[in-house]
């Protein structure tokens, strides 16, 4: 199913599959910006337009901010992990924390934003317990995927 290996991308060329790119960081608010920068850079390379890149920037920031707040609240020293992959026409960003069920309660605004900006959002269990994995996906432009 995977498209045949093409020439590596040029700006404007059809991007080849990208990633995975993995970032692991201490659950501190100051690292969320770093995670945003990584995600923004990869989504731009994957061929998303400016509006969607801004969407990735914000939604990934929300997912990582949520992971940091859950980790702080649970008092876990586990690192937060973000994995990004762009392949088969889809950009997938997965953010995993080590916190358990006792995470933060007021996540509604963050969820609203992620749902409003990503094509799909799902929250499932992480290694520490329920709610520890946030998965965001965006469809890549058709001309970039073919």
């Amino acid at each position, binding site marked *: 199913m995977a498209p045949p290996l093409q020439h590596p991308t040029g700006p404007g060329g059809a991007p080849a599959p990208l990633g995975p790119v993995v970032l692991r960081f201490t659950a501190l*608010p*100051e690292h*969320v*910006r770093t995670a*945003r920068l990584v995600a923004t850079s990869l989504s731009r390379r994957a061929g998303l337009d400016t*509006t969607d890149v*801004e969407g990735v*920037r*914000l939604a990934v*920031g*929300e997912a990582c*901010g949520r992971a*940091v*707040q859950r980790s702080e609240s649970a008092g876990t020293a586990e690192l937060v992990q973000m994995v990004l992959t762009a392949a088969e026409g889809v950009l997938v960003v997965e953010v995993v924390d080590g916190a358990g069920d006792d995470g933060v309660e007021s996540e509604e*605004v*963050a969820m*609203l*934003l992620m749902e*409003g*900006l990503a094509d799909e959002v799902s929250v499932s269990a992480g290694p520490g317990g329920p709610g520890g994995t946030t998965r965001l996906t965006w469809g890549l432009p058709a001309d970039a995927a073919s």
Partner: protein
Amino acid sequence: MDLSVTSREQGGRTVVEVGGEIDVYTAPVLRERLNDLVGEGRHHLVVDMEKVDFLDSTGLGVLVGGLKRVRSHDGSLHLVCTQEKILKVFRITGLTKVFPIHSTVDDAVAASSGESAS
């Protein structure tokens, strides 16, 4: 720190100019500044967001907190914002119904002055 906050008086209102990124890391700084202003008796705020490059849910929380705080003193909080990417954040979360949002500081000051002479 990737956030700047400065304030000045204009037309009897306090204009708070915010620049940079308001996120989970920097939002506490903005919260503190808004709290300080309200504590000094400045209850009519105009927050100028034109130089804000990024706003997340934590930042929204701080603005909502500021609004509640000034309202408890019969004050007001108006926003200035024309950037589509920032407006989108307010729209998705339904907060365009909560905050009066203006295109210029002058408009915001005029609207704020019009609704309640201080």
